[in-house]
């Protein structure tokens, strides 16, 4: 069954990119124009009826997003990872929400985090980021630290607030001074003892 399926995928979709990752997990890479066709074939002919997840990976160096669709057979024993690349600058792809009801929320999640336009999904409104106008946060170019420094202010704290860096420096200096003073006192005491002994010996 699997051999036939792989053969059909290879011949129909002109790809050698079919991989057996585990005995229950397969992966295939396909051009995004033919993604629908492949998913339909797997669903109708090989029982991959359930869409489990859609994931996205940002390959910023290569200029694309890797979208992976996880399809599971009706008996849930096999999963097929179908991966397709889309241009990350003008990220768009057709939506699956009219075929798989659960795709609507999965695409909405990815739309918010990566800014991908899933064409045909009627519910791409904001999910957890309220009034977000910046770069979608899971894109690699979004720098969390820079965002925090530019957009958020640190609370000043209480009036008697102490800068921990300055305070720890002061405490370190104090400790060092105490240590040196103790050392000097010890040396002085030792010198005193030597002097006393010399006097005692009558030198």
């Amino acid at each position, binding site marked *: 069954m699997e051999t036939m399926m792989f053969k059909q995928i290879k011949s129909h979709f002109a790809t050698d990119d079919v991989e057996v990752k585990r005995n229950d997990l397969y992966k295939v890479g396909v051009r995004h124009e033919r993604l629908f066709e492949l998913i339909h074939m797997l669903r109708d002919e090989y029982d991959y009826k359930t869409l489990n997840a859609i994931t996205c*990976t940002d390959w910023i160096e290569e200029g694309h997003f890797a979208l992976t669709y996880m399809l599971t057979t009706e008996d*849930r024993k096999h999963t097929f*990872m179908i991966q397709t690349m889309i241009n990350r600058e003008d990220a768009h792809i057709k939506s699956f929400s009219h075929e*798989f*009801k659960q795709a609507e929320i*999965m695409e909405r999640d990815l739309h918010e985090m990566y800014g991908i336009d899933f064409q045909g999904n009627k519910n791409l409104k904001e999910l*957890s*980021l309220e009034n977000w106008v910046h770069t979608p*946060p899971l894109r690699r170019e979004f720098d*969390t630290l820079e965002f925090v420094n530019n957009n958020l202010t640190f609370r000043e704290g209480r009036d008697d607030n102490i800068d921990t860096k300055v305070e720890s420096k002061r405490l370190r200096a104090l400790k060092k001074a105490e240590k040196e003073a103790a050392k000097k006192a010890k040396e002085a005491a030792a010198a005193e003892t030597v002097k006393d002994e010399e006097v005692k010996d009558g030198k």
Partner: protein
Amino acid sequence: MENKHITIFHGPQHPGITGNMSVELDLIGETIQKATTHVGYLHRGFEKLIERRTVIQAFTIVCRICVPEPDPNEANFAMAVEELAGLEVTPRAQYIRVMVLELSRLAAQFLWMAGQSGSIGLYAVGQWAIADRDLILDLFEELTGARVYHMYIYPGGVRRDLPEGFLERVSTLLTYMKKRLKVYDDIFINNASFKSRAIGVGVISKEEAVANGYVGQVLRGCGIEADVRKDAPYLVYNELEFEVPTQTAGDVYARALVRRDEMDQSIHILEQVVAKMPEGEVMIKMPTHRKFKLPKDDTWVKVESARGEFAYYMAGDGSEKIRRMQVRGPSLVHAFTLLEDLLVGAELSDVALIMNSLGICPPEIER
């Protein structure tokens, strides 16, 4: 009649909500016309944080993805890293992992029992269930040093071996639990007030459940024997005997019965684990964590959590950092696709009841 529509928010400040989320309800009288789920109250950006950390630094985050049940996250993370890095875990470590996962499942089901009973006002059940869950947390504390976030199922094995006499203490607890669960049957599962509230409420059809990618008790409550431990066995589940409990009604009560039977199965699995626990090392030799690199490859791993299939997608890029880790828990689809559908036509007083039966955990939506 004018103004017959009322819109109210159920949550996030509501005892009947399963965490930090809310459902906007459009009502006519007490009947729900439309339900809209809202999240965004606790997004912590974990998936982003993980991309900027080394593998082992990222490990400390994953258990926090789901609060009531952190261990499936640790197991998924460890299994994904091991698969990408080509590591093999020792048999003893695998058995210990199964033990931790099953104890965690039992603890999560007690927590569910507290929530489900609380949603219809049976507060005594909730108090008892939380107290009994604490006995499991005591064992976790002894084994891992922590009650909730264990950070124990580490890539390469488990963080430390079992303390002396630990398996005997697990056996003692299991004997207690077996007796104790009969009490819960009397005061909760067979309780007439629970039955009258739960039977025929929140019914899901089998076809819809399969097509829409629902998991866990939602599928099993419709009569489908879905369980990752049987369908695609991981760790040593293929060496252990257990059944997958199912019901056919597809309602809140069917899901409760499935959960109750699963508690028996967890105890049965734990008894076998205690009897079969092999000797040996619990951790393989791992590279220094700063030099630990994942190859440019990706994988999809899944475990059966107390609420259903819990999966991770993980991609490496040849560096010390994980390129991408995406969490696929049961909650995203259950809280939006399923809950928004299921609440239409339901009564306002049943919202908490239905929501609890679906196993929705908002921290896992906003990871």
